[in-house]
């Protein structure tokens, strides 16, 4: 009955080994199936993606493409200004979902090339632009820095109504000495 020190140690090592192997196995299995790759609309257009593979699609919500169905289904296009992908989503859009704003959607492409999203993310900060989207826009050479919005395609307001473009007096200098 009494175990030697050696068998005790072996038991301990055995248990540690089993648990670690189980953890590793789970991690590897989960990595193969549950991890979403980030792609831009251009990636999808050029290299394509297999229907059914989980993806994160990031870009800007293209102006004028948001359409709402009767049953809380929304369709819109995600663009990186070069290519665009049609997205459908059923559910509540996040607070900061707006046309022309950065967005990350997660889901998969269907056979028709429409992206069926189950998650739409637009973070809780008015200047937030998902990091992946910023990087990809920079890569496309269309990023304008500090939160500049996309050029508007709407009717331009007549000049006397346009908000003054520069409000320089607002930001006081920080003391640096």
């Amino acid at each position: 009955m009494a175990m030697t020190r050696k068998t005790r140690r072996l038991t301990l090592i055995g248990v540690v080994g089993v648990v670690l192997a189980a953890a590793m196995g789970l991690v590897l299995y989960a990595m193969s199936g549950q991890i979403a790759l980030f792609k831009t609309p251009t990636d999808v257009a050029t290299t394509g993606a297999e229907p059914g593979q989980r993806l994160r699609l990031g870009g800007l919500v293209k102006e004028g493409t948001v359409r709402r169905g009767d049953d809380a289904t929304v369709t819109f296009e995600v663009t990186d200004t070069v290519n665009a992908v049609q997205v459908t989503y059923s559910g509540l859009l996040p607070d900061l979902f707006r046309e022309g704003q950065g967005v990350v959607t997660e889901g998969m492409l269907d056979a028709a090339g429409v992206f069926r999203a189950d998650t739409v993310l637009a973070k809780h900060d008015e200047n937030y632009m998902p990091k992946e989207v910023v990087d990809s826009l920079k890569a496309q050479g269309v990023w304008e820095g500090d939160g500049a919005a996309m050029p508007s395609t709407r009717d331009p307001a007549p000049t006397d109504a346009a908000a003054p473009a520069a409000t320089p007096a607002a930001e006081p200098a920080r003391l640096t000495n």
Partner: protein
Amino acid sequence: MLVWIVFALMTVAAALAVIVPLARHRRAALPASAHDRAVYRDQLAELERDRERGLIGAAEAEAARAEIARRLLKASEAAEAASPRRSWAKPAAMAATMAIPLLALGVYASTGSPDLPDQPLAARLQAPPDPNNVVEMIARVEAHLVNQPNDAEGWKVLAPIYLRTGRVDDAARAYREIIRIEGPSPELNEALGETLVAAGEGLVSEEAQAALDAAVQADPDRIKARYYRALGLLQAGRNEESLAEYDEIIRRSAADAPWLEPVRENRKRALAALGRPADTPEPAGLPAVSAGPAAGPGAADVAAAEAMSDEERAQMVAGMVQRLADRLEQNPRDPVGWMQLIRAYGVMERPEDASAALKKAEETFKDDPTILAQIQDAAKSMGLVP
């Protein structure tokens, strides 16, 4: 001066916190093994309590007791701490007395602003106002309106300033407040509608359309209201009505009115939307103002007001830009300021000034590539090639 006295007292207190305990005469500390023994005795007592209550079996208790006893014995045998050598209390106290003030002043000298007094908002609002500081004036009026929200005059002061400083939503709120207090008038409805269109970045919302409708209905000569109304109708796909509204504007305008240019432009779009030729004849307008006194007084007033406000705004913006430039002259290490200045010059179509500003900014930040890149990006976005 007072602040330095307080700092000195604080420094003394900090130094004393180190020196006093060092100066106090100290017995040698109890050896660590004494503390260990206290713990093991306590464990034994605890074991005894558990045993008395029958929480553990007798054999188990005996084994545990033997184990703790062994630890106790070992702790008792442990070598007592070597008797201390000469204490370093005195040199340590002297070093601390030197180090604390030197360190504190050294760090504070590079980070602090000892001459800057506190500026609680309440106290600042009681001080005499500075008429040149727009931001301050806004804050004062806002503070006043918190207590007297029904003072229409206050809102009337704020609304145009908000509009000029780019706070269009606040401007719209201010117009709504005035309408709430004084009741609607064509002027107010027109201003509200215009503000809302600006807030919507050119999109005419339902609320804006309603305000514009009311303005035009009460005063058919509100050309500006008509202009935005037509725009809204066009956006809503009510092309026929939009075209009618544009025609109405032309009918009510002098032939040389400055706004006819964009009106004709938009009218063409309405025509295009209706599928009619762009050169569909327009109705006859009023005679040109310069041609005679027949021009409608309403239209002339509008023109005058528009010219005034345009000029005023240009002056206002120029003044603000100048102040920014002056400030950067004195305190150039302000990347955000430089980017604002370059953009402002770009918007005002003063490319030479913009290039000069860019050059100065590049000079200032030549040792900081990140900021440099940001500033150059800003310049690029304004069409300035570095």
